[in-house]
C-alpha cells in the first residue's frame, strides 16, 4: 500500500509545483512530475508479485504465462508517455513564444489578463 501512497505523494508534489511556482518552466516541470506519478501508478497497478515481462519466447513453458504481469496498463502508459511528450513540446513552444513577447519566464509579470 505504501507504494501507492508514494505515487500520490509524487502527484501532489507536481501539483504543488504548479500552484506555488511563478516561473513557467517550473510549471512545465510540475506537469512532467505529475505525468511520471500517474504512469508509475498505472504500472504498479498491473504488477504481479514475482511477475515477468509479458513477452513470450519460443521455448517457454506454458506455466510462465501465469506469471506475466498485466500487459494492459503497460499499453496505457505507452500512450500516456507519448501524450506527455506531445503536451510538453507544445508547452515549450508556448514558453519560448511568451519569452519572446515579455522577456521573462515570470508568470506574475506575464499575467495581465483579469480572471
Amino acid at each position, binding site marked *: 500500500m505504501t507504494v501507492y501512497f508514494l505515487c500520490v505523494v509524487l502527484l501532489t508534489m507536481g501539483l504543488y509545483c504548479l500552484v506555488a511556482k511563478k516561473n513557467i518552466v517550473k510549471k512545465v516541470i510540475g506537469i512532467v512530475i505529475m505525468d511520471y506519478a500517474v504512469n508509475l501508478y498505472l504500472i504498479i497497478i498491473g504488477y504481479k508479485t514475482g511477475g515477468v515481462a509479458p513477452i513470450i519466447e*519460443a521455448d517457454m513453458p506454458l506455466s510462465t504465462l501465469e506469471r506475466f504481469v498485466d500487459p494492459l496498463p503497460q499499453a496505457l502508459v*505507452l500512450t500516456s508517455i507519448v501524450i506527455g511528450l506531445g503536451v510538453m513540446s507544445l508547452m515549450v*513552444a508556448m514558453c519560448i513564444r511568451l519569452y519572446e513577447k515579455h522577456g521573462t519566464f515570470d508568470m506574475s509579470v506575464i499575467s495581465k489578463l483579469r480572471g
Partner: protein
Amino acid sequence: MKGMTLIVKTITDFVAGFIVIFGAYIVLYGHLTPGGGFAGGVIVACAFILLMLAHGADVAFSKLPEKVAHVMDSAGALAFLGIGWFGLTAGFFFMNTFGRGEMFKLFSSGMILPFNIAIAFKVGSSLFLVFSALAIFRRRSFRAMIEDELA
C-alpha cells in the same frame, strides 16, 4: 566555425549511422522483443537531433530536408489510418486482415509490422521537425542575445 568542435563532429558522424540502425532494429522487431514503432522512432529522431546539435541546422537539413520531414510526418499518420481503413474490407475498422505468417519470425503477425513502421516514420520526422522549429525560432528571435552569450 558553426556547431561544436571537430572531435564532437567526427564522433557524431561516426555514431549517428549506428543510432539509426539501432532505431530501425527496435522498430522492426517491436512485435517480438521490447520496443516498437514509438521508441524506435524517437531513437531515429535523436540521431538527427544529435547531428543538428553538433553541426548546426544546415547539415541536419541536408541529411533530412524539412519538406521531406513534413511529408513523412503526414504520410506516416495517413498510412496508419489507411491500414486501419483497409480492415473495413473485412467488415471492421482496424481488422487485422493481412496474413499472419509464422510465429516468432520477422514477417509475422499481419499488420503489426506495417503499423510499427508507419508510427516510426511519423514519430521520428515530427520530433525532428519540432526540435528544428524550436532551434530555428530561437536563433531567429534571440539572435542578439545569443551572440552576447558567445562573445
